[in-house]
């Protein structure tokens, strides 16, 4: 059955799914398989790749491949947490606003507009300058900032579907709010929401890596992809590609998710709900 489904999606999405599965397996199992520890020093600074260190070593002689596995896991988990948080906040408020309407809708929309008038990286920098950069703060800031986009989408989708005939029929049948949310609106909004979840996840992964790269995200000794780029940035002037490796790992993750998202959106557009 999975095979039949896979043959229906386009090549890009198939590549994306395979890469994502590989990424998940590697980051979940990989660190356990690696002969080295996350912070174990095993060689000189920026040793070239060898049989023992497939991707060479980092600034203070830790195994690069091992660090990337740990770092990718850290980045992906934080991004996942942020995306889940954003969806929890955004979907709940967005769908509630669309179904409730009236002044609740108006107030919620205005607040979201105000936050969205602000470039999110700048807002995050301002908040982090006071709250400091602990992991819960980082995840919370990212979740709240990303929830604005999710709110708008969830509200628009819910309002769209809310105006459709089958929903009107349910309303005439006298169904309650819970029925609307879970039986009428959510199933029909699912493809759009899944695609959006992918986008929020990628954005959060790049966002947190950018903050770490700026020195304002995850703090050492923990490895995360952005922090590793910052840590090894000097190597590039010596002609070593050490800082490129964690950045490439991040890009591979992002490209894979974007490929799948594109396919979901395209498929959904072809269905044409209207």
């Amino acid at each position, binding site marked *: 059955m999975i095979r039949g489904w896979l043959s229906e999606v386009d090549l890009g999405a198939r590549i994306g799914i395979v890469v994502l599965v590989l990424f998940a397996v590697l980051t979940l199992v990989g660190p356990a398989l690696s002969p080295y520890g996350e912070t174990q020093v095993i060689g000189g600074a920026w040793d070239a790749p060898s049989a023992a260190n497939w991707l060479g070593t980092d600034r203070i002689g830790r195994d690069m491949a091992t660090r990337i596995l740990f770092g990718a896991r850290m980045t992906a988990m934080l991004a996942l947490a942020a995306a889940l948080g954003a969806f929890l906040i955004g979907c709940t408020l967005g769908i509630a606003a669309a179904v409730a309407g009236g002044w609740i809708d108006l107030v919620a929309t205005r607040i979201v507009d*105000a936050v969205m008038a602000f470039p999110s990286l700048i807002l995050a*920098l301002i908040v982090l*300058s006071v*709250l400091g950069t602990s992991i819960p703060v980082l995840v919370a800031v990212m979740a709240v900032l990303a929830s604005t986009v999710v709110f708008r989408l969830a509200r628009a989708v819910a309002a769209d579907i809310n105006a459709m005939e089958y929903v009107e029929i349910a309303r005439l049948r006298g169904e309650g709010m819970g029925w609307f949310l879970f039986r009428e609106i959510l199933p029909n909004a699912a493809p759009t929401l899944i695609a959006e979840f992918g986008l929020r996840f990628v954005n959060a992964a790049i966002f947190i890596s950018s903050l770490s*790269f700026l020195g*304002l995200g995850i703090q050492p000794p923990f490895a995360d992809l952005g922090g590793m*780029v910052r840590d090894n940035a000097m190597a590039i002037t010596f*002609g070593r590609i050490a800082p490129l490796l964690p950045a490439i790992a*991040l890009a591979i993750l992002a490209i894979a998710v*974007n490929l799948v998202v594109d396919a979901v959106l395209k498929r959904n557009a072809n269905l044409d709900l209207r």
Partner: protein
Amino acid sequence: MPLTGLVFKRLLSGLATLLIVSAMVFAGTELLPGDVAEAILGQQATPQAVAAIRAELDLDRPALARYWDWLSGCLTGDLGRSLANGREVTDLIAGRLGRSFLLAGLAALIAIPLAVGLGLIAALYEDRLTDKGISATTLALVSMPEFLVGYLLLYVFAVKLGWLPALSRLTDTMSVLDTLRALALPCITLALVVSAHTMRLTRAAVLSVMTQPYIEMAELKGATRRRIIFRHALPNVLSTVLNIVLLTLAYLVVGVVVVEAVFNYSGMGKLMVDAVAKRDVPLVQACGLIFASVYVTLNVSADILAILANPRRRRPK
């Protein structure tokens, strides 16, 4: 509603947004849980140090009064003093702002024609090899963090080929040519990252118009695809494209933060990041306000241009 009235209304709401944004910048640093002074100094702060910071930031007065002082100060060009080195924030920002605008402006000159052109070409040859090639490249670029694009370019053009300098330090005695050489890598990085977004949006905007009935009509009467896109579709997507262009500029303004860090370019982005690391609240506030104001101004301009370019937008829905 007459056109001027609509534009005026949008301007007013833009001003209101600016006011809200300034309040958010202030509230972001002042009204967060806990005491700013203690947050700045950390847990081990001595009471004397906390008291000194409280006095410096005037924390004993009500927040609303301090907000008013701060805002009127900003409007008259007095942004306060840096906590880290006691210098006037205005002096710290003065040189940096121009450099960031120079960087973003040059990047825009490359990015906008490139992105809109590629977007049109991709739409023109939809689903053909050209489109697939362009779309795949931009998808990859959109997925790449700015620092990856930056370091890749730096590795190839500065380290391996040695054509361009790796560090983009500008000095006053530099010739125009040297300045351009120093700016080349950060500019191209910014332009690539941003034009990927813009190109995808342009392509989507053109293709969404292509599903309209009047396009089908043009097809049925036998117009070529080129003619349909340039004569029938383009005038109708013009306002959307203008919007996309200005949103791109807004994105550029924020994009400078990471790119400046990659190339060690001393602009506003680097100033703000350093200020955040040092928890220099007045400097962070000033930088945040400037970034946000430019961003809001560009967004409002995008809306006004869209109203001017598209008669249908003039009628309220």
